[in-house]
């Protein structure tokens, strides 16, 4: 009962945040200097052409009227159209989503596989050489600018060693993308038994995900380590030790399970943020994901994609945090104040 109340309250709190998000999104997009009509009309247009276009794009209406029209459209599931392609923005975002999703999910998955065990080891061997080494590596990892490590990776593995494919996107040059089933190249090539496409999309994924893995692993190591240290100090672990349980059992059954909570929070936030936020990595590797898509939109004053993208990632982010909060409340009832 109290849990339901908590969840409802948490959801109600979302309403002002979402309204605020829509206002900020809208005004930021409109604050972009320049005249979308001039951009859309292209270089060969007369003032009359531009005026006609402003009317058509409803840019001549008062700003609040434009805002309500925009919100109204969103409630009808219409996020508008890109003037560059004339296509619904949601469709375009959806087409760019698999690229970002594949890259981020794969990288984060590997980062978790590496980061959590290393974090646990560092905590168990607190203060050891290994711990110090890992600490150094993880500080280094969060300090590397991805747009630079990506370039260095391209230079070393593609230009010098020639073992990586050229950084030209999701699939190699002479390979056809797999038949469209879901839009996820790796999944599609497995489903359609397309070996070359699978091999190519995996190898195209190597360098960008390497770049992301380096950046993502470090925070995971850090948080796992400190969270694990906190748990190891708790009384129940000590008493478990005292009661003569075997060390691995204590570590993995009791300690790690409890230590994972903050780790999950971090990863959740990270995931939401990365799905839309890896602009730089996508840019360097010509990865046709949502980040690159939104950069192009911003540079071209294409309001609708900018608004939709910012709006949706904000909602995604808020949603992930709300879910994490609710999960916390379920796991630890003390939080439901």
């Amino acid at each position, binding site marked *: 009962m109290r849990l339901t109340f908590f969840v409802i309250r948490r959801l109600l709190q979302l309403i002002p945040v979402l309204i605020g998000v829509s206002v*900020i999104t809208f005004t930021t997009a409109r604050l972009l200097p320049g005249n979308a009509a001039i951009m859309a009309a292209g270089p060969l247009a007369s003032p009359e052409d531009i005026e006609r276009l402003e009317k058509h794009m409803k840019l001549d209406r008062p700003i609040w009227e434009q805002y309500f029209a925009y919100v109204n459209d969103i409630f009808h599931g219409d996020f508008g159209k890109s003037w560059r392609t004339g296509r619904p923005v949601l469709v375009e975002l959806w087409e760019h989503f698999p690229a970002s999703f594949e890259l981020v999910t794969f990288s984060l998955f590997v980062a978790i596989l590496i980061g959590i065990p290393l974090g646990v080891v560092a905590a168990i061997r607190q203060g050891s050489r290994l711990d110090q080494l890992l600490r150094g590596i993880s*500080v280094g990892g969060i300090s590397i600018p991805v*747009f630079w490590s990506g370039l*260095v990776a391209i230079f070393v593995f593609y230009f010098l060693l020639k073992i990586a494919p050229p950084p030209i996107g999701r699939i190699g040059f002479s390979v056809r993308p797999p038949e469209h089933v879901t839009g996820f190249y790796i999944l599609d090539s497995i489903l359609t038994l397309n070996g070359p496409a699978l091999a190519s999309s995996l190898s195209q994924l190597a360098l960008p995900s390497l770049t992301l893995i380096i950046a993502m692993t470090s925070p995971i190591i850090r948080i796992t380590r400190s969270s694990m240290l906190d748990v190891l100090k708790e009384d129940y672990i000590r008493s478990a030790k005292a009661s003569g349980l075997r060390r691995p059992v204590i570590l993995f059954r009791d300690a790690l399970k409890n230590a994972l909570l903050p780790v999950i929070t971090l990863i959740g936030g990270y995931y939401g943020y990365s799905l839309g936020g890896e602009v730089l990595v996508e840019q360097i590797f010509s990865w046709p994901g949502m980040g690159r898509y939104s950069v192009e939109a911003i540079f071209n004053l294409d309001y609708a994609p900018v608004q939709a993208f910012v709006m949706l990632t904000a909602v995604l*982010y808020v949603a992930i945090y709300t879910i994490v909060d609710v999960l916390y409340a379920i796991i630890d009832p003390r939080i439901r104040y």
Partner: protein
Amino acid sequence: MRRRTENTPVAIERLTRQANRFAEITKRRFGFAYLVFRLNPASLLGLIIVVALFLSAFFGPLALPYSPDKTNAPERFQAPSSSHFFGTDKYGRDVFTRVLSAARVDLLIALGSIGLAFVIGTAIGSLAAYFGKAVDAVLMRIMDMIKSFPQFILAMALVAALGPGVRNLIIVITVIMVPSFARMIRSRVLSLREMAYVDAARTSGVPWWKIITAYLIPNSLGTLVVTAALNVSYAMLDAAGLSYLGLGVRPPQAEWGTMISEGTSQLLAGRWWISVFPGLALFLAVLGFNLLADGLRDIIDPRMRR
């Protein structure tokens, strides 16, 4: 039910003494920091990097024979050598000189925006915590909103709106950094607010702004300094990332992100030095601030250590 009792000079003096003791403890911890720095080699390394960064930013360009911005086309694309340690770029400018000259701008942007975010965030956070209720709800919801945007995209859109340039970069990074400070100080002040001496000061008629500036903020300073140190490195990475996308400083001003981006198209022609060295400088600077922040956190506020 207000306890309106000790509104006498004696009482106020006692309160002041109490507050001073808090401040003293804080100061002692900072003094202690000096010792611990010497004990923690990693943070010491961070400190050295940061100090070296400042020194080279201020004195480096003066000591070098080349101008960072003047073009010299006949000298372009020279590989690193004894006369050009880091080689030259496509305008024939000395990359080493530019890397040092860029340190100034990058430090200015990072420290400038963190300084502003520090001040604004502290104001917002302490007001929200002190007054609570509606003030708290409104201010913190706004902070939540800013936080809920994909920060880099928001920054990009804002810079695109305001136009590239050092000043606008500082403004934009300030905007995305304020919520961290506001949240941090809010939670600090919330716990301090219930302390006896604050309560007493309030009941004895000390005005709210004085309580905040004289009692609450000084006692949160440690936390704030750690937050600031941690965020300097993010600010630096964000500034360089925006510059990398072309949303940075005005040419011909050197800036690390811009330099990396200028070198991108030369990388696959084998001219690696144009982008690798500025990137290395950026990496070292961020590493320095991160190590330093780690050390500071261990000393000032061990509980913050996640």
